[in-house]
C-alpha cells in the first residue's frame, strides 16, 4: 500500500502506574476504513485522545504522513487534517445546529479571526455549513439550539461537525451509540460516502458487528491498552484470542 497517512509509534500513556495505552504501533492508509474494537476499558478512546491531541503521550510518537505531530496542540492537529468526533456528545449547546456546523466550516476556511466581516453575510461558509446539515438530515432542526435536540439528532450533529472539518483523517468514536434503528443508517451512509473518496483515512470505534462487517477493511483489536490483533476482518475475527475476549462471537453484538 501507499505510505501511511497516520501512524503511531510505541504510543504509551500512563496514569499513575497504569498504562491505559501501552506500546501501540500501527499505521493507517488513505482509502482504508479501520474498525478498532476491544472491550470497555481497552484504551480505544484513550488512543483516539492521544492521536487527536486531547491527551499527551507519556512515550511514543505520532506521525501524520511524514510530519511528527506528537507535540502539537489539538487545534494544530485539527488544522493538519485530523478530525475527531466524540463518543459522548460534545457540542456547543446554546448555539444552533447551523452555527455549530458553521463554526467547523469556518475553522477549516481559516476565517475565525475576522472581526469586521459579518458572519451571517459570509454566504459561502453558510451554504457549505448547510450542505453538511442536509447531509446529516438535520435541515428541519437547523435553527434549534443543539441542547434542544433529541439524542439521535445530537449524535448526527456530532458527525456533521466532523464532516464539516473536512479532514484527511476521520476518527469516529461509536458514532451510532444510543441511536435508534432508523437513525443509524444516515450516519453509516455518510461514512460509506466518505469512504468512496479514496484519499481519506477512516478510523472507527464501533461495537455493532453488523456495522463492522458492512464497513471494515481492517480490524485492530485493543485489549488492556495493548494492540493484540490487526488484519482483515475475517482473519482477525477467527483468531482464538479475539474469540476469547469476545465470548459469544457470531451473535449480532460483541462486547
Amino acid at each position: 500500500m501507499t505510505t501511511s497517512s497516520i501512524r503511531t509509534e510505541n504510543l504509551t500513556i500512563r496514569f499513575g502506574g497504569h498504562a491505559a495505552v501501552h506500546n501501540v504501533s500501527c499505521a493507517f492508509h488513505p482509502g482504508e476504513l479501520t474498525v478498532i474494537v476491544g472491550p470497555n476499558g481497552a484504551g480505544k478512546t484513550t488512543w483516539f485522545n492521544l492521536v487527536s491531541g486531547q491527551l499527551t503521550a507519556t512515550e511514543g510518537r505520532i506521525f501524520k504522513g511524514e510530519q511528527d505531530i506528537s507535540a502539537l496542540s489539538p487545534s494544530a492537529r485539527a488544522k493538519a487534517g485530523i478530525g475527531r468526533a466524540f463518543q459522548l456528545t460534545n457540542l456547543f449547546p446554546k448555539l444552533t445546529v447551523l452555527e455549530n456546523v458553521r463554526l467547523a466550516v469556518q475553522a477549516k476556511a481559516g476565517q475565525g479571526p475576522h472581526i469586521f466581516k459579518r458572519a451571517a453575510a459570509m454566504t459561502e461558509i453558510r451554504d457549505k455549513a448547510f450542505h453538511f446539515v442536509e447531509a446529516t438530515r438535520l435541515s428541519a432542526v437547523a435553527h434549534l439550539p443543539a441542547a434542544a435536540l433529541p439524542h439521535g439528532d445530537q449524535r448526527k450533529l456530532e458527525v456533521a461537525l466532523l464532516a464539516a472539518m473536512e479532514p484527511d483523517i476521520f476518527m469516529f468514536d461509536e458514532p451510532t451509540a444510543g441511536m435508534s434503528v432508523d437513525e443509524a443508517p444516515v450516519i453509516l451512509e455518510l461514512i460509506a460516502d466518505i469512504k468512496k473518496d479514496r484519499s481519506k483515512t477512516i478510523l472507527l470505534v464501533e461495537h455493532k458487528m453488523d456495522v463492522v462487517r458492512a464497513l471494515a477493511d481492517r480490524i485492530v483489536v485493543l485489549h488492556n491498552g495493548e494492540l493484540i490483533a490487526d488484519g482483515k476482518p475475517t482473519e482477525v475475527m477467527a483468531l482464538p484470542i479475539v474469540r476469547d475476549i469476545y465470548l459469544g462471537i457470531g451473535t449480532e453484538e460483541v462486547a
Partner: protein
Amino acid sequence: MSTVTISNPITTTAQRRVPAGRLFVYAIVLAIGAVLMFAPFLFPDVRAQEVAARICVFIVLVASYDLLIGYTGIVSFAHTMFFGLGAYGTAIALKTMGPGFDAILLGGSLGVLASLVLAVLIGLLSLRVKAIFFAMITLAAASVMMVLASQFFEYTGGEDGMTYTIPRFFSPANTLIADENGKAIRIFGVAANGRLALYYFIFLSSLVLFLAMLRIVASPLGTVLEAIRENEMRAEAIGYRVVAYRTSIFCIGAVIAALAGILRAVWLRYTGPDVTLSFDIMIDLLLMVVIGGMGTMMGAVIGVVIMTLAQFYLKDLMASGAAATSNVPLLPDLLNPDRWLLWLGVLFILLVYFFPAGIAGTLMGKGDHK
C-alpha cells in the same frame, strides 16, 4: 465529500420569524438611544446631563465587559483597571501639558497602549489557567494598580484624584454658533456652547464604540468566542486556538475600556480612584451586566440605564414618596431617602428573580423556539 441524496431539501435562505421578545428588546434599546441622542434638549439641567453622559460611557464600558464575561466566559476583575488607565493617561496629560486636544490624544493613546500591553501580559501569562485563578490574577493586578495610583500621588493626586481643565472648545464659555450679539444661539432653549459639543463628542464616540462591538459579536470571531464559552475543548478540537482567541478578546476589551476611560476623564474634568479604579465601580459593572443580561450586548444598555437611574434618582423618588405618605404610620420611615440602598437591594433581588437571564436575556429568550 459528495452529497448524500436528500429526500426533502430545505433552502438555505429559509426565512425565520424574529421572536417578539427580541423585537421588544431592540425597541427598548433604540428608544434609549433616541433619548440619549436628544438628552441635552429633553433634560437640560446639569444633573441630568451628567446622568446621560455617564450612561453613554458606561454602556461602552459594560458592553466591553460583556464581550469578556458574557460572550467568552472570561471572568476578569481588572476591567476598571483598564478604564482607569485610559482616564489617568488623559488626566495626567491634560494636567501637565495644559488643556489641548494634543494632550487628550497623547495621554489617551498612552493609556490605551498601557492597557494593551498589560492585557497581553495578563492574557498570555494566565489565560491558560482555570477561570477561578484567572479571576484572582486580575483581582491582584487591579489591586496593585490602585495602590500605585494612590502611592504616586505627585502624578496621580493620590486618593483625592486630580482636577484639570479640558480644551476650551468644550467649555461652556465657548460659543459654537453666535447670534448677532456674539452670544451662543439657543436651540430649543439650549445654548449652543462647548458643553453641548462635549456631550455630543461623548455620545457619538460611545455610539461608534458600541456599534463596533455589535459588529464584533456578529463577526466570525464573535461566534468563535461563544463557542469557547460553550465548549472550550470542542472549540480547540475543531481547530481554534483557544488561548489566542481568549487573549485577543481580552485585549480588545481592555482597549475599549481604556477608550471609555478617556471619555469619562474628559467629561468629568476630574479623575480619581473612586470614579475609575475602585472596586465599587467593578461591582457596579458586574451588576449592570448581570441585570441587563450577559452575552446579549443589548443587556449592557438596559442594565446601565436601570442601575444609573436608580443610583441617581431613587433617593429623590423616595424623598417625595416619604413626603406624600407623611400622615401614614411607618411608610415615611421606610421611604426615608437614607434607606435608598436597602430599596436598591430589593430592586436587584426582584430583577434577578424575575429575569434570571438578565432583562434582555430573559426577554429575548421569550417566544424563541426552545
